[in-house]
């Protein structure tokens, strides 16, 4: 096809710098929203999904398959579970982590308002073996009985406080009692990143309970599989246990939160649609001013398709530029931001697929935004367009 030079599109953009800036910012805003939504869905999804090779099994109280915080498991059960032959062992250490999970109202020393419910996990040192995603990035693990705790990377966002308030040596208040922060850990893209960890016995005291919430074990695939854990739970009816793959546990949670994802996507689509309509309005005005130019180009022998393509090029350049800006802004400002939800918090994830979605949305915005006004422009007979 005989085309207008690409230059033609780019130079035309320079005609009205004010409008250009507005158009770029407008599309950047729409794309940023799309990126934020995608980052939300992806962040939530990745916090609830585990790597395929994860061979962890959670033993929960029977009937509490949906929520570890409601689950009760006896200390004796933990001892029995530890005897499961297929549990992984390294250097004599068995990968068995008895845990207590409680959501507690936590506030910083400086804060006067009531604390926010934050998931707290009481652990033994074996927890760091079983949960290999957890990396201590500062300080050390809490010592039992010393009123110490360790905070995950998203706890600041979860509590709504600046990171400096959670520095090593700072104090968090639980029920008015001070606990000092002795460690920082990260467990990116997992629910643990939004948790506070302390010694198992300490949390049992705080929560006034003498049992556990769950026992998490890592199986050694060479020694046995999940079925062994299931058989153990089925045989030991006295322990009232249910065995679940950790992957399945979070999979069920992810399904539970699927409606939220859908709602976010719908909201984002509606706003994007609004953005497109607003963009259309601008484009209609911008292109209407150019009917005579369209007429002239047709008189010079340019086929309509070439003219449409050139106008779409212009619009796509604008939208793609906006999308790039949105991508940079999204990566810098949104990536890792904590979003609170009922079970803690997760971080927005702005990664390559999310950015790709944003850029694609920008390009679609450009095409969809330009076509209707361009086609409308083209409908006018040439003779009339020349006079227009």
């Amino acid at each position: 096809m005989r085309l207008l030079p690409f230059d033609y599109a780019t130079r035309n953009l320079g005609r009205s710098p004010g409008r250009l800036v507005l158009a770029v910012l407008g599309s950047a805003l729409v794309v940023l929203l799309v990126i934020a939504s995608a980052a939300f869905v992806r962040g939530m999804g990745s916090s609830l999904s585990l790597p395929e090779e994860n061979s962890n099994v959670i033993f929960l109280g029977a009937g509490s398959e949906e929520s570890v915080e409601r689950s009760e498991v006896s200390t004796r059960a933990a001892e029995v579970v530890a005897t499961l032959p297929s549990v992984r062992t390294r250097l004599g250490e068995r990968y068995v982590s008895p845990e207590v999970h409680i959501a507690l109202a936590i506030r910083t020393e400086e804060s006067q308002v009531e604390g926010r419910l934050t998931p707290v996990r009481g652990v033994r040192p074996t927890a760091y073996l079983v949960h290999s995603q957890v990396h201590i990035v500062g300080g050390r693990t809490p010592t039992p009985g010393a009123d110490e705790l360790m905070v995950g990377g998203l706890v600041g966002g979860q509590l709504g406080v600046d990171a400096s308030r959670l520095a090593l040596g700072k104090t968090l208040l639980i029920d008015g009692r001070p606990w000092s922060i002795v460690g920082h850990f990260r467990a990116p893209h997992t629910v643990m990143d939004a948790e506070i960890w302390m010694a198992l016995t300490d949390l049992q005291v705080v929560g006034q309970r003498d049992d556990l919430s769950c026992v998490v074990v890592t199986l050694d695939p060479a020694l046995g599989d999940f079925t062994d854990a299931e058989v153990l739970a089925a045989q030991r009816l006295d322990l009232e246990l249910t065995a679940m793959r950790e992957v399945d546990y979070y999979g069920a949670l992810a399904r539970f939160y699927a409606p939220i994802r859908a709602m976010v996507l719908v909201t984002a689509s509606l706003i994007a649609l609004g953005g497109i309509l607003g963009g259309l309005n601008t484009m209609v005005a911008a292109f209407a001013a150019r009917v005579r130019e369209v007429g002239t180009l047709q008189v010079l022998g340019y086929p309509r398709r070439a003219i449409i393509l050139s106008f779409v090029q212009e619009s796509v350049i604008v939208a793609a530029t906006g999308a790039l800006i949105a991508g940079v802004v999204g990566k810098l400002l949104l990536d890792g931001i904590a979003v609170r939800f009922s079970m803690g918090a997760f971080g927005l994830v702005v990664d390559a697929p999310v950015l790709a979605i944003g850029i694609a949305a920008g390009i679609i915005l450009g095409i969809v935004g330009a076509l209707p006004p361009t086609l409308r422009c083209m409908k006018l007979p040439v003779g009339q367009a020349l006079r227009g």
Partner: protein
Amino acid sequence: MRGLIMFSVLMATFAFAGCTTKDSAPKPGGAAGGVSSGLPDGIMLSSAPADAKPLGEVKKSAKKGDKVTFVARVGGTKHPFVDGRATMIVIDSSLAACDALEDDDCATPWDYCCEPRESKTANSATVQIVGDDGKPLALSLKGQGGIEELVTITVVGVVTEKNDEGLMVVNASGVHVKKG
């Protein structure tokens, strides 16, 4: 932006809190009903043994090593079968399954979620069919000879594990499935 996300999350949490999840019904698995495959010959009984007692009654007095014959229903937990192992959980027939109650739309009535946990534990047993190594056979019992959730079965076997906290494992040598 953040506000919007927060708002959506809040709304969705309200809208879906308290809902029961109904997607956890066990998938049909194992051999087709009526056909016993992989089980040792003679395990599936064609007629019910005459001297069977209710499981609850048997459990009260049984000791490790006792030979027992009892009647019970498959269930007492959400997943009474272990996929890939000849192990299942049964419960005394006198307890009420959730579908026996009016106005109940429970998707997994065999979990007896309406019974107190202590009562379930006291009236349940683990039934397994073991191989020469003493471990459950590597097959699912679901579907074998009509074994499904909530069917009534009569079990003949030996108690291999028992304690007063609720533990009772029976290695079955014969199972009869009540038809209808």
